[in-house]
């Protein structure tokens, strides 16, 4: 039994801090484990993969800190991020979870922090804090995380996890969700999050910042601008929902490789696009060779082999029409290999099998082979969902052209316009849908729903696209965490929220060694903010003589303006003395002195 009071006294805080010049966020990991468990498990352990801990608990701490440190070194915030974390004995095959503790909208920032780019839009707690410049809830965490203490993770921090699952990678992925890589939509219903009453006033459901960048290319709408029904429909449009953020799109070419297996309808325009498909465990792999042809529905007798004329279980009655084309067959009754074998006999060059009514709600299946027909198959075949199959069927009258191929001009995980696809499978997967990159991505990405074994610990291009998305939603680069984005900051590595810049050059005063640009560095300048007008003026009289700088950093104008005279004669006398000094130093000529004196 856990002792809560003792926990509070023994909460472990791992402080991750970096100097601002290197990008910074402080991430506090608050240990929610009791003595002897989780982070505090005393079981001896041999150091592994750069993890020097000598107990299981210490190794978990070190791995967790390592993952958090990677995030801390990539995101910038002046507000500390609190992660309450624990390792608990979870059920078999349940590895862990993490998420944002609270969400905020309509931020009220402290100047110069920018606040939220979108109104009535939820932001995860840590991101909201960064954008507003302060902690919105001083007694709540920003993220909550728990992981399995009985799953055999690889606890090294070097990524050499071999056959084990790398804890650091899992942590990076889950912390990413908690920091903002997720929407708050119910993909199953399309509903947004968060209607509530505050006193008598009702606040309706509202969108989230992730949805502001989730674009459905079939209708050109982002999820933030859709109705609930539109979002629900969009959530299963495999391959047609993309991330519409500039940073991700710009970075995609450096990460995603050209060439991805695709089932694409080329015409008619109304149904053209990439389709979610299942692959076959028999026949050639997609792309060997590419197949592009018109699609023809196979027709076979309704007989003992199969009761429907669309099931392709018997030899086709329209073999001539199928020959040289892609055969479209309905799933059911007989095996996948038998259907493809019949199509092959009819001379088809490829096969699409779409789900039957009994499987209308299921994803396109992976199609298993068998020892009878499987070895004889020489043409490529794929499966589609029932909705997609019927969509093609309904357009066959006007002719449908499709390709089963590897398109060398399209990057794996992006669409034809180069925008990175989000994972929108059919049937909808509440959670993995939308809030991940598409599994078609290659290279594999950290924020795909499956945490692949070949991932590195990088969040950035050219290895990964996680940070570009985080930039898009508001985690802007701000190395000095003064609220000014680095690209617009006149001192990106020195906090100067006021952006003061006396000489209006490219460097703000906070990082400019010579604020007034008079050639004398500030640390020895008698006046770092000198009057540096080009010529000496007295009253309305412009002498035309240069406003020269004395060795101590004062300009002629500084010294003339500082004169305290008892009368005009005294003023003229003091001006003369200053000019004599300048002349003696060779800073002005006699003629220039005369011009100034005539103004005095």
């Amino acid at each position: 039994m856990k002792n809560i009071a003792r926990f509070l006294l023994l909460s472990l805080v791992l402080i991750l801090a970096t100097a601002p010049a290197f990008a910074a966020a402080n991430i506090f990991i608050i240990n929610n484990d009791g003595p002897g468990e989780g982070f505090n498990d005393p079981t001896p352990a041999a150091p592994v993969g750069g993890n020097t801990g000598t107990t299981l608990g210490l190794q978990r701490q070190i791995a967790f800190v390592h993952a958090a440190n990677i995030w801390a070194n990539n995101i910038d915030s002046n507000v500390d991020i609190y992660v309450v974390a624990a390792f608990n004995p979870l059920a078999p095959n349940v590895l862990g979870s993490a998420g944002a503790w609270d969400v905020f909208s309509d931020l009220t920032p402290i100047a110069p922090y920018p606040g939220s780019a979108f109104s009535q839009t939820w932001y995860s707690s840590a991101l909201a804090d960064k954008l507003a410049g302060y902690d919105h809830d001083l007694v709540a965490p920003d993220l909550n995380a728990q992981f399995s203490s009985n799953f055999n993770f690889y606890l090294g921090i070097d990524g050499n996890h071999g056959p084990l699952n790398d804890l650091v990678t899992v942590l990076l992925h889950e912390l990413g969700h908690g920091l903002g890589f997720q929407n708050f939509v119910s993909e199953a219903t399309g509903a947004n999050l968060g209607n509530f009453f505050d006193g008598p006033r009702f606040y309706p459901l509202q969108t989230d910042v992730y949805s502001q960048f989730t674009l459905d290319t079939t209708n050109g709408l982002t999820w933030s601008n859709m109705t609930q029904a539109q979002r629900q429909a969009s959530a299963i449009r495999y391959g047609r929902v993309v991330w519409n953020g500039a940073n991700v799109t710009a970075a995609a070419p450096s990460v995603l490789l050209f060439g991805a297996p695709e089932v694409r309808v080329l015409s008619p325009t109304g149904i053209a696009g990439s389709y979610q498909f299942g692959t076959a465990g028999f026949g050639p792999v997609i792309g060997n060779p590419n197949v592009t042809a018109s699609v023809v529905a196979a027709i076979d007798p309704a007989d003992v082999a199969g009761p429907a004329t669309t099931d392709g279980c018997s030899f086709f009655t329209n073999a001539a029409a199928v020959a040289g084309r892609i055969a479209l067959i309905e799933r059911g009754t007989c095996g996948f290999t038998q259907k493809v074998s019949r199509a092959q006999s009819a001379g088809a060059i490829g096969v699409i099998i779409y789900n039957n009514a009994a499987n209308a709600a299921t994803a396109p299946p992976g199609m298993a082979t068998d020892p009878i027909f499987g070895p004889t198959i020489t043409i490529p075949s794929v499966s589609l969902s029932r909705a997609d199959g019927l969509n093609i069927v309904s357009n066959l009258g006007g002719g449908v052209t499709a390709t089963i191929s590897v398109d060398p001009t399209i990057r794996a995980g992006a669409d034809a316009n180069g925008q990175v696809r989000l994972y929108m499978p059919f049937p909808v997967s509440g959670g993995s849908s939308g809030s991940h990159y598409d599994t078609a991505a290659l290279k594999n990405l950290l924020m795909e729903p499956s945490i692949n074994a070949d991932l590195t610990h990088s969040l950035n291009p050219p290895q990964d696209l996680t940070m570009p998305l985080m930039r898009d939603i508001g985690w802007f680069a701000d190395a000095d965490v003064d609220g000014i984005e680095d690209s617009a900051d006149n001192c990106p590595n020195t906090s100067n929220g006021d952006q003061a810049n006396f000489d209006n050059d490219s460097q703000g005063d906070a990082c400019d060694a010579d604020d007034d640009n008079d050639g004398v560095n500030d640390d020895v300048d008698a006046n770092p903010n000198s009057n540096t007008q080009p010529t000496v003026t007295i009253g309305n009289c412009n002498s035309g003589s240069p406003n020269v700088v004395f060795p101590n950093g004062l300009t002629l104008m500084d010294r003339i303006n500082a004169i305290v005279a008892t009368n005009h004669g005294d003023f003229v006398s003091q001006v003369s003395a200053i000019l004599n000094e300048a002349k003696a130093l060779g800073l002005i000529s006699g003629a220039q002195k005369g011009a100034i004196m005539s103004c005095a």
Partner: protein
Amino acid sequence: MKMRNAFYAAALGTALIGMSAQAEVKWITSPRAEKVKQAEARRTPSTQSVVKRERWSATRAIIFDHATKTLRKPTAAETASMVEHLEKMTSKPVRSIAGRVQANGTRQGSIEGEHATVVVARATADGQYETLCVQTFDEAAEFLGLVRVVTGGNQQ
């Protein structure tokens, strides 16, 4: 160095220097952890399952038995444990949430971490595990091959 870093450095008795800084450990009290404990205590498996008195069965071999080097289905106890944990971890607020408007106009939605994503895994024949990051119980159940067996109650 920023003031806050200087403060932490002083508190830790160490210097925090750039990216080479090593994480330091400090034991403190934290009301933020208490928030999580309170929420966890309130969180129970979904009412729906309790009302329906559902049982679950495992249809897929997802556990690698290291003794026999083979895959096996979860036992009844393991299945029940998975269901219990997953229901708790995937529990979501209904679309209505506990919210408030702060004095400065900022809206706060208290979801108490209940939009967390959950990583589940299933073993493959070679003893490795493939993973999936999910947010709903149904998705986790489908991935793990858990099937609902309704035995009574308010069935629809």
